[in-house]
């Protein structure tokens, strides 16, 4: 039992280094492409967290949607909008030190609040067996949570159709493209 606990803490420390180290690289890296790759490292750390928290289904969902889809989408957008954003350019704005101050204060407030709070932790018996099967989760999504689930589906559909409409090349844009090409 002691070995198992030590192992859990060891894994937790490794995952924390991955998640927070990757996160710091995301916000400080000068090369945006490296920042996006660091985001993948950070998200992989969060996958490990979900496994450690016995939320296996969420770990798989995180892996598929965040690492498999959203990261790739971001990498593609960086490649599409490159050119102007050379790695040598300064990537942070003039207010970065105010931002750092505000963020530090926010963090301090959060830490103080959550360490003072007494959380209503469940009893030991319940903590030992967090039994949520995937089938239960599926039944919940079409049972008590059916309406939010449907709303999310409609939202996703609207967002994707909107994304296609926004990013599509119209006749007008193609014209300005050709002009820009000829003036270069």
């Amino acid at each position, binding site marked *: 039992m002691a070995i198992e606990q030590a192992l*859990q*803490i060891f894994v937790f420390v490794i995952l924390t280094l991955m*998640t*927070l180290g990757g*996160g710091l690289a*995301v*916000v400080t890296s000068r090369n945006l492409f490296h920042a996006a790759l660091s*985001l993948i490292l*950070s998200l992989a750390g*969060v996958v490990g*967290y*979900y496994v*450690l*928290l016995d*939320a296996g*289904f*969420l770990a798989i*969902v*995180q892996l598929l949607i*965040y690492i498999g*889809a*959203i990261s790739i*989408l*971001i990498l593609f*957008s960086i490649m*599409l*909008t490159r050119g*102007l*954003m050379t790695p040598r350019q300064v*990537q*942070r*704005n003039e*207010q970065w030190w105010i931002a750092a101050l505000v*963020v530090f204060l*926010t*963090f301090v407030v959060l*830490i103080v609040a959550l*360490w003072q709070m007494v*959380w209503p*932790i*469940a009893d030991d018996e319940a*903590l030992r067996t*967090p*039994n949520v099967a995937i089938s239960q*989760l599926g039944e*919940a*999504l079409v049972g008590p949570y059916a309406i939010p*689930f449907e709303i*999310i589906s409609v*939202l*996703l559909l*609207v*967002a*994707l159709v909107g*994304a296609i409409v*926004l*990013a599509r*090349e119209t006749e007008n844009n193609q014209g*300005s*493209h050709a002009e820009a090409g000829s003036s270069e």
Partner: protein
Amino acid sequence: MAIPLSWWLTVAAALFAIGLYGVLSRRNAIGVLLGIELMLNAANINLVAFWRFITPQALTGQVFAIFVIGIAAAEAAAGLAIIISAYRRRRTVVVDELDTMRW
């Protein structure tokens, strides 16, 4: 469970702070989106940690985490489409220079 709830919440708070710094300090619009993704992940860690430690028999925590991931996917798709569209029109993704609606 060897790791107490406070540790999870601390890690999530740190990740949230890092993401917030990214949103506030990046000049590139895609950099801002990366920061938002970090903040959403921090919220998700909190949801799952609360589910695991406070209501391990209920489904609410995991279901909400799934909803947050769905929202994040929609946000990324719409946000990146807006950025690409803006880049096409203005030839820039620096948020300081996208100031058409500034008075």
